[in-house]
Every structure is written in structure tokens, then in C-alpha cells.
């Protein structure tokens, strides 16, 4: 009996969680006007991709999709390199002030990004980087959280491994590149997913820094679109699908690394 109740609760929870997303996908493939008809339809009478077609053709959302992809991929590559270098130094190399600097970084971990946004905008403006891809990328490539995540993982790399390489005469860069990075693959995978997702999902910063519609990322472009096309429910659902599904698919494929990384950031911290 208790077993049955638990499963009923779990299933009701799962249905409630999934319904908005299921409706989004289903309605995005309905003919125009069907999702708002009476009596309500939950499944398309016939499947159509006309809304996706018009998003990519007349509404130019393909451009925003590529912008988002570009920004997220470049952010991920730089974040992997730059954060792993610092993470490794904080975890395994000995230098003066290491622990003090790291403690200060961790203390700054909780500062909300919005607090930096106004001066950051003015700084980038003085550098001529407003309304550029570089300007969008700036907050994503080196992050305190990224350094922290890598450092926590690399603490567990045995010192003997590095000492042995030093005795063999390997240079410090070579140790980082050929010994440390391969061992740290799991945390790099986690960092990659985190960076990709936060760059893809971010709304406020691209909204602030970009002014040309040609450079808009998906969230900004879709938010704009919803202002003009709100009555076209099926069309807007298709645009939501295009925004959400890439990261959702990435999560389903790599969820083990994602959740493991989340735990590493919380429990060990």
C-alpha cells in the first residue's frame, strides 16, 4: 500500500513537471490556431513544421541560433583552458599567498553578477566592445566558480604523480598539459557542460551588451519575438523549443557528469 502511494505521488509529480514541456513540443507542431481552439487539443490533428520553417526563413531565427551556438562553444573552449590552468595552480602548485588568494576568491563567489554589470558595461564601452561577440563572452570565460570547481577536483590528484614527472625532467607546462589535464577529464566535462549551458541560457547580459538584432543570442531574439508575435502561440512554442531543446538534449546525454559536478561544487565545498 505504501509502495503504491509513493509511486502515485512520484508519477503525479513527473506528469506535473513534464506537462509544460510536452505541451510546448506538441503545440509547436500544430497547425496555426489549433492550440487555442475549443475544445482544447493536446495532440496535433496533423504534424506540421510550418512554424519552424517561418522561424528560420522570414523571422531569421537561424541567425540567433548560430550566434548562441558560437558564443556558447567559444565560451566553453576558453573556460576549459583558462579555468583549468588556475584551478591546477591553486590545487597543486606551491607559491606564496596561495591559500589567502583562494579564500578571497571563494568569499567573492556569492557576489551577484548584476552588481558588476553597470561598471562592466561602461568599461567595455570605453574599450569599444559594446555590441560585439567579445563583449558578450567576457563574463563567461574566466569565472570564480570554474576555478573553484577544477581546484576542488584536482586536490585529489596524487602529488607523487607530479613529483615523478618532475624527476623525469618534464617541464611544468608539460606536466599540466600531458599529465594533469588527462587525469582531470571528468571535471573538465562538468565544467564544459556548465559553461555551455550558462552561456546559452543567459539573458540579461546579452540583452544589455548587444544592440544589433544580427548579433542577438537566442534568449534575446526570442524574447523580442514574443513581444511582436505573442498571439501566434504555435509559432512562439516552436521558438521556445529551439531555445530549450539544445541544452535539454545536452543534459540528457551528459547528465551523469552534470549532476556529479553539481555535487562536487556543493558537498565538498
Amino acid at each position, binding site marked *: 500500500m505504501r509502495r503504491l502511494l509513493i509511486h502515485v505521488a512520484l508519477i503525479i509529480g513527473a506528469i506535473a513537471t513534464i506537462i509544460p514541456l510536452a505541451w510546448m513540443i506538441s503545440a509547436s507542431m500544430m497547425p496555426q490556431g489549433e492550440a487555442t481552439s475549443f475544445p482544447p487539443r493536446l495532440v496535433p490533428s496533423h504534424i506540421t513544421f510550418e512554424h519552424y520553417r517561418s522561424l528560420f526563413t522570414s523571422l531569421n531565427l537561424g541567425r540567433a541560433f548560430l550566434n548562441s551556438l558560437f558564443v556558447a562553444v567559444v565560451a566553453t573552449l576558453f573556460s576549459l583552458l583558462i579555468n583549468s590552468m588556475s584551478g591546477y595552480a591553486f590545487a597543486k602548485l606551491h607559491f606564496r599567498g596561495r591559500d589567502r588568494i583562494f579564500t578571497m576568491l571563494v568569499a567573492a563567489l556569492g557576489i551577484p553578477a548584476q552588481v558588476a554589470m553597470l561598471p562592466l558595461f561602461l568599461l567595455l564601452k570605453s574599450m569599444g566592445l559594446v555590441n560585439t561577440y567579445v563583449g558578450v563572452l567576457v563574463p563567461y570565460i574566466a569565472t570564480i566558480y570554474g576555478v573553484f570547481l577544477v581546484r576542488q577536483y584536482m586536490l585529489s590528484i596524487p602529488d607523487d604523480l607530479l613529483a615523478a614527472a618532475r624527476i623525469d625532467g618534464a617541464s611544468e607546462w608539460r606536466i599540466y598539459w600531458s599529465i594533469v589535464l588527462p587525469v582531470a577529464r571528468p571535471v573538465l566535462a562538468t565544467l564544459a557542460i556548465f559553461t555551455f549551458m550558462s552561456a546559452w541560457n543567459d539573458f540579461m547580459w546579452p540583452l544589455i551588451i548587444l544592440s544589433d538584432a544580427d548579433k542577438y543570442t537566442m534568449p534575446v531574439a526570442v524574447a523580442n519575438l514574443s513581444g511582436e508575435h505573442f498571439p501566434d502561440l504555435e509559432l512562439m512554442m516552436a521558438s521556445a523549443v529551439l531555445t530549450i531543446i539544445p541544452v535539454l538534449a545536452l543534459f540528457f546525454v551528459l*547528465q551523469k557528469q552534470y549532476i556529479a559536478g553539481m555535487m562536487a561544487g556543493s558537498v565538498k565545498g
Partner: protein
Amino acid sequence: MKPEARAALLLLTPAMTLITLFFILPVAGGFLLSLTDFDLYSIGDVGNTRIVGMKNYAGLMQNPLFWRALTNTLYFSLVGGPLTIAVALGAALLLNTKLARFKAFFRTIYFAPVVTTIVGVAIVWKYVYHPRVGLLNRLLDAIGIAGPDWLGDPRWAMPALILLAIWRGFGYAMVIFLAGLQNVPEELYEAARIDGAGPWKQFWHVTVPQLGPTFVFVGIITAIGFLQVFAEPYVMTPDGGPLNATLTIVMLMYREGFRWWNMGYAAAVAFVLFALVLLATIGNALVRRTR
């Protein structure tokens, strides 16, 4: 300098330079900015900027919109945060029972909303809340209840945003709770059972105290996330919603700073957000210590 220290310096330089230049300095600069009257004229020529001390903060205290935004943000966080944590804990407890099957499947489903793009789900939920054709009101219709115009009614707009935030946020806290629950030693439950404690007593006297540090972490992360709310109201209830019922602190900062270019004033709003986040962090940690 030893080779190891030299290597450390080289490896640290890129990240530390970027973090200092594009985060630490702007945060410090933001405080200085909040002490000036930096506005549209200053963007043309910085020479037009004057130091005004605490005038921006004093101006905020006089501004009814600021109090509106502060109240809304606290309402959203103090109601939405605890509810999210409660739903997350409930889901985690269900998934943690030995009786539950297909745990990985349910965990994945519950977690999925966490990774969704806020703007995307905000659009979907705007239709969920549509007064006539929305899923929610059609569902309520089916059981004979006439649902309100959720996002258009000043009383219901904020609860509607809170429901969306719970939906999108509980999976994250749930996974952290699951990790915490797995660290609770089974012997404690056995000892409690021997003492005759039922499930409810076991929950209050074993699970809750054992999850103490997890509660603090989840509480801090959830509070920080809720206090920063921006994209949902921006997309779903533009311009602050009905009677400014969904104007939040970050929306006010965005509006003042990037629409009207009152950047000194907006920087003061940003530091109020900073203070709120700090208070939430300290508050959560203190609650833990007094237990």
C-alpha cells in the same frame, strides 16, 4: 623564483587578470558609481559626473517604486524559496525510500526544468497562464473553477511567477538533498525505530538535524537565485506587470541603468541587491548555528 612558483604565476595570470578586470574591479567600481550622479550626460562626457555621496541611496528611500520592487522581491524570495525547498525535500524523501523504483528516471524528469532556458520556459508559461486558452485555466474549467487572469491580476501575478520558479528550481535542491540523505547513517534510523519513533518522529529527529549543513547550502543557493529574479518578469509581465506587482530589484536596476541611463542611481539599486544577498547568506548560516 622557483620554477614551480614561476609556473604558478603563468598559469594563474589569464584567469586572475580576467576575473579582476571584469568582475572584482567592476564590483568595486559599482560602489563608487553609486556615489555619483552618473547619467546620460556623463556617457557623453565623464566630466559631467559629480560625487553626490549617499544621495542616490537617500533617493531610493524616497522612491515608492523602490519599496514596491523591494517588497515584491522579498515576497517572491520568502514565499518562493521555502516552498521550493519544501517541494525539493519532499521529492528527495520520496526518491530516497527503499520502496521507490525507477529512481534514476524520476530524478532525471524532476531535474530537467533546471537546465531549461529561462526565457524559453517563461514564454511557455505565459501561455500556461493565459486567461482563456491557457492550460491552467482550462484545467480549472474542467473541474468547475473560473481561473483568474493570472498575469494580468495584481494579486495573482506574483504567485504565478512563484509557481514557475518552484517548477524550474526544485530539481536542483532535490539533487543536493538526495546527496545529503545518502550520507545519513542507517544506524540512526534503526536506533530511532528501536526507541519506538514512527516515520514522522524519525524525520524530525534524525533526518532534519542530519541534513543541517545541506539546508544551509540549499537555503543560500536558493535565496541568491530568487533574489536575482529578472528574466521571468521581464518576459511574462513586461514593465513591472499589473500595478507594478512584479517589478523586482534587478528589473528596477535594469530599467534605471540601461533604459534611462541613470547609472549612478542604478548602481545604488545593485548594492541593495548585494546587501540582500549578503543578509540571506548570513541569515541562513546563523539559523544553522542557533539550532
